[in-house]
């Protein structure tokens, strides 16, 4: 049955606690959006400086790795949302299963990303590597942006996986019908998903048919 239905001592009731927790998480996520906003602004500036070179640099990216990772992360986000729904409807067993499935897909995402980085390294697109070679200074700038953006995102995926795993491991979280911990971990995971939703056209789709 549902547990943790009583609010922490500093809150009048559980609804107020839930709203305060979510509001705090969303304000934190707003700061994350501003952090990634700077990264997107760099891409925006590069594209406005030289649209043709941007499209050409993007055409070297691994479109199908990016597409697979988008599908994986969207599915993982759905599983995190399902975990919240399951916990809220007092179904802790399925809440745990959904969370672990979301974590599993997150690990697959990192695996695909690592393989993509390896192929980029073999192609000589890793800035600073001994075999690095770029056709122009702009292509190197784009590559710098690509590794900064996806590297920062991968760090956030790792953080999100830690949060989701913590929520999945805690019995009290799975049995909380207000889904406070699971809900906040899921919010973070959805933000990681939204950032990738915008990185996908920025990095991969721009040069898809070039």
């Amino acid at each position: 049955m549902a547990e943790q239905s009583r609010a922490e001592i500093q809150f009048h009731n559980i609804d107020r606690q839930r709203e305060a927790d979510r509001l705090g998480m969303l304000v934190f996520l707003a700061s994350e959006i501003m952090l990634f906003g700077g990264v997107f602004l760099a891409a925006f500036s590069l594209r406005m400086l030289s649209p043709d070179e941007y499209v050409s640099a993007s055409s070297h990216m691994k479109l199908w790795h990016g597409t697979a990772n988008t599908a994986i992360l969207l599915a993982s986000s759905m599983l995190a949302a399902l975990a919240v729904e399951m916990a809220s409807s007092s179904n802790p067993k399925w809440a745990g299963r959904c969370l672990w499935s979301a974590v599993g897909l997150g690990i697959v995402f990192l695996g695909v990303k690592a393989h993509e980085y390896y192929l980029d390294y073999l192609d000589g697109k890793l800035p600073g590597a001994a075999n690095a070679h770029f056709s122009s200074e702009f292509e190197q700038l784009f590559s710098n942006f690509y590794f900064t953006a996806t590297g920062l995102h991968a760090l956030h995926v790792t953080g999100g996986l830690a949060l989701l795993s913590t929520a999945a491991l805690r019995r009290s979280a799975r049995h909380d019908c207000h889904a406070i911990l699971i809900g906040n971990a899921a919010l973070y995971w959805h933000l990681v998903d939204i950032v990738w939703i915008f990185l996908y056209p920025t990095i991969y789709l721009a040069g898809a048919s070039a």
Partner: protein
Amino acid sequence: MSAGVKRLLVVGLGLQVLLAATVAASFLPLGPFKPWVGYGIAVAKAVLVLWFFMEMRKEGGLVRLATVAAFAWLAIMFALTASDYLSRSWIAAYADV
């Protein structure tokens, strides 16, 4: 299966369909509209995630405002930066006169 679970599964499927649409659109000869289509579909996906997965549809005004605020500041940052880059050619044009 509850209505809530069904809703999330349908939204999840919708997101995958939008992904397929955006990949297909990127191979079409859309010319200057290509980024608009790519980012338009990205916005649609983000709105679905925010509304259904992040449960904005259930939230009150304060929580929605906290969410929208981040995007509002982001829009200001992009608008001011674009005003610089997009107007540089105007100044160059006057400099030649």
